[in-house]
């Protein structure tokens, strides 16, 4: 405080000449304006972007889903290519330097011999066989998207060499290629399943929440009963019932439907509770008074209010479907061998004595965990972002 600040002191009184706008305090800065005028989806996007981990996970998931479009190109071998002289070969290590000299990425070729004691094949690296990897090269032929023939791969082994970065299985098939092909089935089964269960949850939950009363009561009971049932044994029972003579594709859809049939309860509950809360809102009453039909009110006025929330809930229930399929196939009740998912691959690792000898058969566990974690983190971020006004 200076002299002028003292009580009783007479000082120069400052008066601003600038024109005074009484509304200046209410005016929005450009930043605020942008925020207040942004649509709900834009707000969600902003909020999601700040959730660093969720964005990373979304990126991981996108990459994996994108890879399913190009599985044939990405995998060094075809799904069913068998190298009968390399049964249960261990993963080949990738090297860059040979004898202190730079040669680019390469693997050492295998020498194999049969251990006469336990008839196990023993593979050793032969440092004389330097097998340089080729990129964008010609290998196994395939039919791309079922449309046109091609034989170009991202990476192939050297001419007459091998490339088993994750080892081979009991028929000498490359694990890496099989995992890449398995991604396709494992990931799509979650997506197709969630679409079915999403539709079921919307319709059933919507009816229960909008009409209330007896419909609501029945739906509530059904949900309660389905939820009190341990999921996996029920899945097991249902998939065991699938006729044995069904084609693999039919089995695939059968399993998807079975997974979806028990999964819709969570979504239906979310829809119902949201609808119950929202149908009391004034705008809903107004729409009713104007003579809008229930279908229009639900779809046009109520759904947009909590759709984002639903998407988040659905994202969080995809992993349980992927896990369900993996568990079923692992037990041998799910998909059957010509169709290859991670669970089908893990089926080979069921016997511990085999796994102890050939631990790389367990490798399909890794992508399963990565995908489940990614979906969980992403779904968590999405759920936080789904309520952007908080």
């Amino acid at each position, binding site marked *: 405080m200076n002299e002028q600040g003292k009580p009783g002191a007479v000082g120069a009184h400052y008066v601003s000449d600038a024109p005074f706008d009484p509304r200046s305090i209410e005016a929005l800065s450009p930043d605020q304006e942008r925020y207040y005028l942004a649509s709900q989806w834009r707000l969600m996007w902003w909020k999601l972007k700040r959730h660093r981990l969720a964005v990373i996970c979304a990126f991981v998931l996108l990459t994996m889903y994108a890879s399913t479009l190009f599985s044939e190109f990405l995998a060094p071998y075809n799904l069913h290519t068998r190298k009968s002289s390399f049964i249960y070969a261990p993963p080949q290590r990738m090297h860059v330097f040979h004898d202190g000299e730079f040669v680019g990425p390469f693997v050492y070729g295998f020498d194999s011999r049969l251990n006469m004691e336990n008839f196990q094949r023993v593979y050793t690296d032969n440092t004389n066989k330097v097998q340089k990897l080729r990129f964008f090269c010609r290998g196994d032929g395939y039919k791309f998207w079922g449309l046109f023939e091609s034989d170009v791969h991202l990476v192939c082994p050297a001419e007459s060499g091998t490339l088993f970065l994750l080892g081979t299985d009991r028929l000498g098939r490359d694990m890496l290629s099989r995992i890449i092909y398995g991604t396709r089935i494992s990931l799509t089964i979650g997506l197709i399943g969630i679409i079915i269960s999403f539709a079921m949850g919307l319709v059933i939950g919507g009816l229960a929440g909008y009409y209330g009363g007896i419909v609501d009561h029945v739906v509530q009971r059904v949900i309660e009963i389905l939820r009190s049932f341990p999921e996996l044994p029920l899945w097991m029972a249902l998939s065991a019932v699938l006729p044995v003579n069904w084609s693999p594709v039919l089995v695939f859809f059968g399993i998807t439907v079975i997974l979806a049939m028990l999964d819709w309860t969570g979504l239906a509950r979310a829809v119902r509770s949201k609808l119950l809360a929202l149908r009391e809102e004034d705008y809903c009453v107004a729409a009713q008074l104007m003579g809008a039909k229930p279908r229009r009110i639900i779809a046009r006025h109520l759904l947009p209010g909590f759709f984002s929330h639903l998407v988040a809930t659905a994202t969080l229930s995809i992993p349980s479907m992927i896990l369900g399929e993996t568990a079923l196939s692992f037990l041998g009740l799910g998909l059957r061998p010509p169709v290859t998912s991670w669970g089908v691959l893990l089926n080979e690792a069921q016997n511990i004595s085999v796994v*102890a000898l050939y631990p790389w058969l367990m490798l399909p566990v890794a992508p399963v965990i990565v995908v489940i974690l990614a979906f969980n983190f992403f779904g968590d971020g999405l759920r936080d972002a789904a309520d952007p006004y908080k």
Partner: protein
Amino acid sequence: MLRYVLQRLLMMIPTLLVISALVFVIIQLPPGDYLESHIAELESQGESVDHEKIAFLRHHYGLDKPVYQQYFYWLIGMLQGDFGYSFEYDLPVTEVVGDRLILTVLVSVFTIIFTWLIAFPIGIYSATHQYSWGDYGLTLLGFIGLATPNFLLALVMLYLANIWFGTSIGGLMDPQYIDQPWSWDKFVSVLEHLWIPVVVIGTSGTAGMIRRLRANLLDELQKQYVVTGRAKGLPPFKLLTKYPLRMALNFFIADIGSILPTVISGAEVTAVVLSLPTTGPMLLGALQSQDMYLAGSFLMFLATLTVIGVLISDLALAALDPRIRLQSGNS
């Protein structure tokens, strides 16, 4: 309270009826009846078919009657303790099942106790130390536990035990006790083997429970009365335990209803991997060979176990929280 208990018990009956109908539909789905496929199988193996016995079974289980009557036969039989006939083992289901049901209950109960013991302190720690390194570390660990399917965890643990100790950790008791009557030594042996499946099955439930306990307790801790208490100079420990923790405890009891189906699901598959003598492997075998009475009674048993578990948690919750018993008493 008595009224609430009665109400809850009565509500169980329709639930179990619907579940039994559902299970019956599932076991009816495969084409043909069990005896037909059984006869076909026996004949294809060149074994003689005891027609008298088949006819007796057919009559006894009402397989010559319409479907809805079969259902009632099955239902009434179950109420009288007759769970049907296992064609694979050629024995009544009750004799095949043996200890497996007890062991399943044992594994489930211990898993839930384990879940509580682990989740409770960690959840409280995470909530009271929000955004600390400990909280972050435990949250991450919880997420990984949540994401790892327990049968894969079982597989990995089997492998590691094989590598490190050179032993198999499968099974639920030492070999000499298998098929022996229950004794104290056998019980101890079971307890010694129990911890591995309990840990494996418990991880995902524990992780979920930690997260929910943390969220609930955090909500409670942000309330005004906590601030008031702190302003009054209440010691931190008392401030935590006196009200917020008790509020969070309610949900803790209620949560058993949501983790029990997960625990039982997980227990089935884990049991297959670890080859535990519980219902899991036998259910799988029964499903694969379409030995449907056996599979059906297992499904029924698992569902009943879940329903009873939920009932217990509801009753405990009502005993703990007067709001619940008053609310449902009035309506």
